[in-house]
C-alpha cells in the first residue's frame, strides 16, 4: 500500500511542480537572480550614448534592488543582476556577444545596443533563441516591420520625432502654412522625414521644400539657397550632430530667417550651443526626455496609469552614483534605457515568470508611466505610448516648450532673426 502510494504520489508531485520549475529555472542560472544581458556600446563611435545607457540601466537596477526590494516572483523578492559586454559599437561584435549572453551567461532578457543599425543587427540572434529583445536606442520603425516576435521598443519611433513640433506650430501660429523639410539621406533621418511629411499634410501644412543631403556633406549652401527661395515659414530637418551644426551655421551665413527651426539629434545637445553661440538661440529640437520634464506619480494618477520607478531627481542621483561622476547629468539615452528596466520588471511581475514568451505577452498589455513618461507598445513591439518633448534654446539654456503637459517654459515663436541674435536679442517668449 505504502509502495503503491509512492508510485502514484511521486509522479503527481513532479508533474505539479513543473510550472514552478520552469518559472524558477531561468533565474536559478543567475544564482537566484534575474539577469539582464546587454551588448553595450562602451567604446567606438557610440561610446557617449552607450555610457549614458549603461548609467541609466545601472541606476534603475539599483532602484529595483534597493528601493523596490527586488522583483516579486513566486511570492519572493528576487534581485536583478546586470551583465554587460562592450560591443565596441561594431555590428560583428553585437551578434557574437548576444549569442554569448544567451547561451553562456543564460540571461533572462537581452537589452539591445544603442542605434538602429546595431539593434537591427542583433534582433535575428535574439529571435533565433526565442529571447526577449528590448530596444532602448533604435528608433527606426523598420526594426518592427521585420516580423520579429521578441523585439520590444522603449525609445519612440523615428516617425514621431517631429510630430510635436508640427502640433506646436499648428496651435500657437495658425497663420503658419509653409514648411520646408531638409534631412540627411540616412535611414533614420529619412524615416523622421516621412513621419514629419505625413503629419504635416494631415495638419494641413503646405510642404514647399523637400530635399535630402548626403551623409558627411561639408557644405549645405546650394541646398539652403534653394530652400531660401521657397520662402518657408518654418524648417524641420537634420540627421546627426555634425550636419545639424552645419545646417544652423550656414542658415546664419546665408541669412535665412524663419519663424521656427527644429533640428533632430543636434539641437538638444549642450555642444550645439557651445559651438554656435548666439546662432543657436531659439533653435528647437525633439528629445525623448529632458531633465525637467514633469512626469510624476501625481501625473500618472491623473491619467489613470500605473506608476513605477524613481522620481526624476532620484533617477539623476542614482545615475550619478552609477557613473561615479557627480558632474555628469543623464540625457535621454540614459532615461530610455532606465525606463526599459522598469517595463521589464512590471511585465515579469504581471506574468509571474521570466519566460520570454510570457513576458513578451505581458509587455504587449502593459501601460504605465515613469520618470521617462508613458510606455505602451503596439502588436509589432513598436513604442506608441511615449511622447517626445521639444526643447528650445532660450537665453543659452534648454527649455522644454512642448507638449504643454511637460513644458518648463513657453515657446518663443517666431524666433529672432540671425541679425537680431547677433545684436544680442534672446529667444524669450
Amino acid at each position, binding site marked *: 500500500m505504502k509502495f503503491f502510494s509512492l508510485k502514484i504520489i511521486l509522479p503527481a508531485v513532479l508533474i505539479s511542480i513543473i510550472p514552478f520549475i520552469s518559472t524558477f529555472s531561468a533565474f536559478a542560472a543567475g544564482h537566484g537572480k534575474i539577469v539582464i544581458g546587454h551588448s553595450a556600446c562602451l567604446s567606438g563611435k557610440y561610446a557617449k550614448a552607450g555610457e549614458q545607457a549603461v548609467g541609466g540601466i545601472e541606476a534603475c537596477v539599483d532602484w529595483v534592488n534597493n528601493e523596490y526590494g527586488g522583483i516579486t516572483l513566486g511570492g519572493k523578492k528576487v534581485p536583478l543582476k546586470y551583465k554587460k559586454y562592450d560591443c565596441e559599437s561594431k555590428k560583428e561584435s553585437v551578434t557574437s556577444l548576444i549569442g554569448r549572453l544567451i547561451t553562456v551567461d543564460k540571461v533572462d532578457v537581452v537589452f539591445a545596443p544603442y542605434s538602429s543599425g546595431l539593434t537591427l543587427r542583433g534582433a535575428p540572434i535574439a529571435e533565433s533563441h526565442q529571447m526577449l529583445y528590448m530596444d532602448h536606442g533604435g528608433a527606426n520603425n523598420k526594426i518592427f516591420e521585420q516580423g520579429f516576435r521578441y523585439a520590444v521598443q522603449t525609445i519612440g519611433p523615428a516617425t514621431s520625432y517631429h510630430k510635436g513640433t508640427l502640433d506646436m506650430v499648428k496651435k500657437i501660429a495658425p497663420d503658419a502654412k509653409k514648411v520646408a523639410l531638409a534631412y540627411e539621406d540616412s535611414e533614420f533621418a529619412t524615416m523622421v522625414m516621412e513621419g514629419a511629411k505625413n503629419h504635416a499634410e494631415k495638419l494641413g501644412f503646405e510642404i514647399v521644400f523637400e*530635399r535630402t543631403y548626403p551623409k*558627411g556633406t*561639408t557644405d549645405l549652401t*546650394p541646398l539652403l*539657397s534653394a530652400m531660401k*527661395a521657397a520662402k518657408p515659414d518654418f524648417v524641420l530637418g537634420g540627421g546627426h550632430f555634425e550636419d545639424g551644426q552645419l545646417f544652423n551655421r550656414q542658415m546664419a551665413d546665408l541669412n535665412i530667417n524663419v519663424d521656427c527651426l527644429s533640428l533632430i539629434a543636434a539641437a538638444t545637445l549642450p555642444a550645439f550651443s*557651445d*559651438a554656435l553661440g548666439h546662432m543657436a538661440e531659439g533653435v528647437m529640437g525633439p528629445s525623448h526626455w529632458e531633465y525637467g520634464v514633469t512626469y510624476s506619480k501625481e501625473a500618472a494618477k491623473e491619467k489613470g496609469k500605473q506608476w513605477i520607478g524613481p522620481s526624476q531627481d532620484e533617477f539623476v542621483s542614482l545615475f550619478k552614483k552609477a557613473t561615479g561622476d557627480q558632474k555628469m547629468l543623464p540625457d535621454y539615452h540614459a532615461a530610455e534605457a532606465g525606463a526599459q528596466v522598469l517595463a521589464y520588471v512590471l511585465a515579469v511581475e504581471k506574468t509571474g515568470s521570466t519566460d520570454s514568451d510570457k513576458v513578451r505577452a505581458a509587455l504587449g498589455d502593459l501601460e504605465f508611466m515613469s520618470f521617462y513618461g508613458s510606455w505602451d507598445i503596439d502588436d509589432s513591439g513598436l513604442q506608441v505610448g511615449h511622447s517626445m518633448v521639444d526643447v528650445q534654446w532660450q537665453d543659452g539654456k534648454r527649455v522644454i516648450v512642448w507638449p504643454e503637459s511637460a513644458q518648463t517654459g513657453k515657446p518663443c515663436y517666431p524666433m529672432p532673426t540671425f541679425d537680431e541674435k547677433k545684436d544680442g536679442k534672446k529667444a524669450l517668449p
Partner: protein
Amino acid sequence: MLLEQLSGNLIQGVVLGAVYGMATMGLSLIFGVLKVVNVGHGAFVMVGAFVTLFFFSSLGLNPFIAIPAAFLVGILLGLAFYYAAIKKLLNAPELATLLATFSAGVLLEETVKMIFGSEYRGFNWDVGKVDLIVTALPMSKIFAALGSVAIALLLYVWFKRTRAGSAMRSVVEDSHGARVCGVNVDGVYAMSFALGIGLTVASGVLLTMFIPVGINPYMGGGYTLKAFVIAVLGGLSSPYGAFFGGLVFGLIENTSYTLFAFIPGVEPFSLTRFLSFLILLIILLIRPTGIIKAK
C-alpha cells in the same frame, strides 16, 4: 529666381573652390616630387582644424594666427613621417607607401581622439558678412578664400624665384638629371614632403575658417576624396593646377546643384557627387596625368 540662385551659387563656388584648391596643393606637391599618393591627406587637414580650434577656443586668438602655427606643425609632422617611413619606402612597390600614408592617417586620427575625444566641435568666429543681393557671404569665408589665394601666390613665387624652388622643379622634371647636376635630391624629397604636409595642415585652418563646425578626429575622409578629384582635375603633379582644379570643382559642386534641382524625382546632391566622379573617370581615361601639366 533661377538666375539669382545660379549666380549666388557661382559666387559661393568660387570662394569655396579657392579653399578646396589650397587644400589639395600639398597632395599634388608630394605626388609631383616623390610620386607618393598620400591617402592619409584628410587626417592632416583634420590636424589643422584642431590647431585652429585650440588657438581660437583655448587661447582666444584669431584663426589667422593659427595658419603659420599649423604650417609649422605640418612641417614637423612631415619631416618626422618622411624620415621614419617614407624615405625607406621610396623604392618599394607603390602599395607600400599607400599603406604607410593610410596608417599615418589612422594613427593621427586615433591620437587626436585620445587627446581631444571623439565629439564634434565647432567655434563661432563672427566677423560680419557681406550682402551681395543674390547671396550673403560671411567675412570669415572671404578671409579663408583670400588666405588661400595668398598662400598659393607665395608658393608660386617660392617655386619660381628661389633656389630651393628651382631644385624642386628640376626634381619633378627629371630626378636623375637633377642629381647629376648636383641637386641634393634626397634633401629635396624631405623638403617637398614636409612642405606638402605643412600646406595640407595649414589648409585645415582655412577650411575650418570656412566651415567652423563638425570638427572631429574623423572629419578628414570627405576631404581626401574631394582632394583626389581636384588633384586629377588640375594635374596630379601640379600644385598650381590643383589650385585651379579646386576652383573648377567648387563651381561644379555649387552650380550643378541648382541645375540638377530641375530634374524631377532626383536628389540634386547625389547627382552632384555623381558628376564629380564622372568627371574624374573621364579625365583619367582621356588624360591620366590630369588637365594641367606639371611645372
